[in-house]
């Protein structure tokens, strides 16, 4: 191949990678706008963790402390985990199940959209909503709950929680492939709500019955909440590496399941 051809090819590749980046950005932008305008999504995903936090962290127990950490601070970590988990599960599973079941995904697949852009948009959107939820809890905690931490700790907590949205996004993808447009939301709730309770996101972990605390050890939100609580000085005594490993392994399993669903769909009967 002559050098001229190589240069030409390179130029083309460069242009197309910029084009690809634009596609990923727009896909994510419109996924975000779509969910932001979806009252079903914002009402449940954004308002529940914030409402719970206001009620249990600011109105009822704001002067109390759990093991040396003030309740408003402690609950930022747990309701933060709860919010991140909801945003990520609903953000991926509900949309995917509906797009798959009602034909929209096929229109997208028939277009020249890079297939990965579709999934990336859902994952990124979940992270953006997770950020919004955590920042809202920070704002409420600081202004109304007297939460005080070094800036670095706030940043650390935010980073931890937002990174923690990834395993739940992968779980959402797996769920989205094995539920239908109507069954997705109730299925998500069926998993999300009991899992939140058992992981100590509503009732502080040490107040849970022993059997529930043992179940929690295999639940991903438990591990994320422990990482978050670790930042505010209220974690249990496992090492952070263990928590991250559990979350990582869980994400891998979910990706594997999602991959099976993706493969199955490629050859599935449609209408």
């Amino acid at each position, binding site marked *: 191949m002559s050098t001229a051809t190589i240069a030409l090819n390179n130029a083309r590749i460069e242009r197309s990678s910029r084009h690809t980046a634009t596609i990923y950005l727009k896909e994510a932008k419109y996924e975000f*706008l779509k969910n932001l305008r979806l009252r079903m999504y914002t009402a449940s995903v954004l308002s529940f963790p914030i409402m719970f936090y206001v009620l249990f962290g600011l109105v009822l127990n704001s002067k109390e402390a759990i093991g040396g950490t003030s309740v408003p601070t402690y609950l930022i970590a747990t309701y933060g985990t709860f919010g991140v988990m909801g945003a990520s599960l609903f953000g991926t599973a509900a949309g995917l199940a*509906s797009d798959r079941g009602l034909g*929209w995904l096929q229109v997208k697949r*028939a277009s020249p*959209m890079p297939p990965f852009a579709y999934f990336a948009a859902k994952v990124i959107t979940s992270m953006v909503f997770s950020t919004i939820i955590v920042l809202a809890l920070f704002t409420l905690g600081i202004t109304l709950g007297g939460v005080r931490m070094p800036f670095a700790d706030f940043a650390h907590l935010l980073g931890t929680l937002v990174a923690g949205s990834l395993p739940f996004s992968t779980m959402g993808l797996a769920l989205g492939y094995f539920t239908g447009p109507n069954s997705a939301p109730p299925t998500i709730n069926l998993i999300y709500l009991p899992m939140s309770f058992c992981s100590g996101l509503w009732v502080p972990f040490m107040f849970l019955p022993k059997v529930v605390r043992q179940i929690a050890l295999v639940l991903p939100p438990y591990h994320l909440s422990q990482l978050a609580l670790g930042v505010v000085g209220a974690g249990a005594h496992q090492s952070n590496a263990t928590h991250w490993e559990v979350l990582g392994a869980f994400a891998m399993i979910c990706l594997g399941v999602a991959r099976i669903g993706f493969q199955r769909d490629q050859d599935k009967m449609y*209408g």
Partner: protein
Amino acid sequence: MTATMEKGQNAGVVRPESIVASLEAVNKNYGHVRALRGVDFRVRSGEIVALLGPNGAGKTTAVKLLLGLMPPNAGRVRVFGGDPTNPENRMRTGAMLQVGRVPETLRVREHIDLFSTYYPRPMSSTEILAAAGLEKLSDRKFGELSGGQKQRVLFALAICGDPDLLFLDEPTVGLDVEARRLLWDQIRELVSRGKTVLLTTHYLQEADALADRVAVINQGEIIAQGTPAEIKAQTSGKRIRCITSLSISNLRQIPGVTEVKEDREAVEIHAREAEPVVRELLARDATLSGLEITSAGLEEAFLALTQDSARNGNHSN
């Protein structure tokens, strides 16, 4: 269905004969259901081809195979001489599919903006909105649109990349007459710009109004192919309805009449061709009134075609 001469068809129009999409001896099964059986079908550059058939005939399956949304069980699917899943082919094709739910909270222009980004050389948003008749609706959310307007948005998404080949799966289903005609005009406009169109429909009238060539599909098999005029000639002719003083037996004697039925105050006459029969009717009965001529319904056309193909024991044209 009123018989109209929408288009002066010319069977032997000279067009570039390059084949842009084809199904070759394709079988597709869904479990035990054989959706397509030995289908051979070609789309040539610059033509509008209609795949005509009742619901469940395999039209949508054929389109999905050509779009590379699923593989055939046997046979070969080619688009632009290559595999339909090839990303470069997808940049040259557009598709309008039947969709249960499109994201409803995005605005028309936002949907178009996103899909335009997928293509290397999209039309401008102004052109797209104009071509799909959506200028006044660009700020509406998809969920706020009527059925016909929603179809137009899907049409806009199909054409936004300025594709060479367009697949339209039942583009006018559920549209009222006016919306249907509008979409027909838009499809004709595309072909006048050199695009190739494959559309599926269960309206004989639609295939007649738009297509250069029609393939009739029934129960997964192509049972007839040809120009709309050729297809119509194979179907069961015309239905003439009128109020007349002539007796049934008198009517049966008119040459070309295949069947006569009483229908409330009027009679319904079936004939291969309407004109000679009508001429004879008017000559015999000066008081004749309420004259209506309609094409045979598609159901009857299918019946005729399927019976023919069964009799000949030959399923290809």
